[in-house]
């Protein structure tokens, strides 16, 4: 039983890592095809990718959309969570439902709805229209995480501040936000991750100023190439670094 367990674990990890290992290994291929046989070690594809201005522009667009849309979603989600958790409003259950609803709908359908609406309204497609779509998918996430994190402890601190004469804006900025900092950080990090990797909304809602996943998609049309491997490996490297940094920060945080 014990041996079987470890064998299963090893096989599972092999399955999980196989394509990624192949991806990274053949990004160093000294040849035109990223498949065996391995013809020798070369950094030429990284050189090519890092010098590709279309890719670098897409990278910049991805970062811009990810950070701006996540920040917007976080602010709106936090304020709405505060309102619905603290103030007794008529219809608050319905409002919670409406705010969470986009989470249960496929991105493709959200994108198609927005595309229809923008077409009818005569709005021309750009990075901004894609950004609007990203806020739509990240808002429910930020709202849900903030809402779940609002506990009684904060409630008392907020009430104390209010009794001492703080305006609602000061309460939000000086009491609620700092006390919810871990939740706010997690919501922002997740939003950036989803937005960074999002394909279909950006694909349908931008025209020329595309993001990294869409640019990679257009690279795939020309078939297998070690250049695509190199881009993929770089994205992997950046993400792992970010995840490890998060882990270390969480680990070092005094408890």
């Amino acid at each position, binding site marked *: 039983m014990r041996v079987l367990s470890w064998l*299963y*674990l090893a096989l*599972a*990890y092999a399955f*999980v*890592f*196989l*394509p*990624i290992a*192949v*991806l990274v290994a053949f990004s160093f291929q000294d040849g035109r095809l*990223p*498949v*065996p*046989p391995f013809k020798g070690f070369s950094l030429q594809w990284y050189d090519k990718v890092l010098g590709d201005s279309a890719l670098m522009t897409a990278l910049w667009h991805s970062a811009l959309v990810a950070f701006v849309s996540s920040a917007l979603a976080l*602010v709106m*989600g936090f*304020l*709405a969570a*505060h*309102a619905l958790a603290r*103030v*007794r*409003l008529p219809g608050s259950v319905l*409002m919670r439902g409406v*705010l969470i609803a*986009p989470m*249960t*709908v*496929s991105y*493709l*359908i*959200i994108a*198609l*709805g*927005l595309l*229809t*609406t923008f*077409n009818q309204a005569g709005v021309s497609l750009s990075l901004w229209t894609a950004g*609007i*779509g990203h*806020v739509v998918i990240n*808002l*429910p996430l930020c709202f849900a995480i903030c809402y779940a994190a609002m506990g009684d402890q904060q409630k008392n601190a907020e009430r104390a501040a209010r009794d001492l004469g703080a305006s*609602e804006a000061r309460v939000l900025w000086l009491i609620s936000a700092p006390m919810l900092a871990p939740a706010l950080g997690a919501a922002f990090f997740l939003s950036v991750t989803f937005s960074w*990797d999002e*394909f*279909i909304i950006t694909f349908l809602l931008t025209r020329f100023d595309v993001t990294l*996943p869409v640019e*990679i*998609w257009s690279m*795939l049309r020309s078939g*297998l190439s070690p250049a695509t*491997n190199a881009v*993929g490996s770089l*994205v*992997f490297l950046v*993400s*792992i670094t970010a*995840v490890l940094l998060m882990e270390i920060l969480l680990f070092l945080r005094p408890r």
Partner: protein
Amino acid sequence: MTLQRAERRLGWGLAAPALLWTLAFFVLPFLAMVVLSFAHMEGRQVVQGLDPGNYIRAFTDWSQLNALINSVEITLTVTVISVVLAWPLAAIIAWRVPPRFQRLALLLAVLPFWTSYVVRSYSWLLVLGKNGVINQALMGLGVIAEPLALASTRSATVIGFVHFFVMLLTLTIYANLIQLSPNYARAAQDLGAGRWATFRHVILPLTLPGVVTGAFLTFVLCIGDYITPQILGGNNELTLPQLIMLQMGRSGNFPMASALSVVLMAVVTLAYAGCSRWLRLDRI
């Protein structure tokens, strides 16, 4: 009384941006899409109306209905395989791996999640392609003489999906298993249950919330995905999202694409109704 009214006004004010954004960019577009699904095309012109023709076509025209059937079949296959593979993996991590290494084990299991989604599908092409790793290895060993057609098949789509969703299900099932007190198993064994009976009647039912939550997420994300079937499955048998993109792109038939999207939504809603009893979406 006035205090309460002031408080309410403040509440509305704080909730307003998020609510208006969701109404303007989610609810309204969705309604516009539903309205559009009852329109039809004359030439390349959209004619508004109350025409159920698109829906009739979705369920009677074989090329359209086939996409729905393919999607449901692929999604169910992926969900079942992923659950069956992920359960033992989660159990081994929760029960066999020493506690202080469990976090590391999970982190490693979901590491490929951090590549780009498009790139992950592409990397399976390198493994399954005509001159990919598997074919080259088998031909090198002399097992086969001609390369097997592994890519551009339904199997390739399923493998690509399973690779992603095993990671997701391992997380949800692990989260469930780690909360179970070992006393349940001990109590069952004290009462005379064998190992199999303990597993079948005690442990497995207790992990149902984690399994169903993960399986539902798998179902929803899998049936709505365009990338994996497009890259790995090719154009031999279309899934619903591929057909929607085709209707929109090549034929510019937005009404038909809208109707198919509403059908896709309906399938997801059915799945939700089917497993809402066990769903714990708020506990993820």
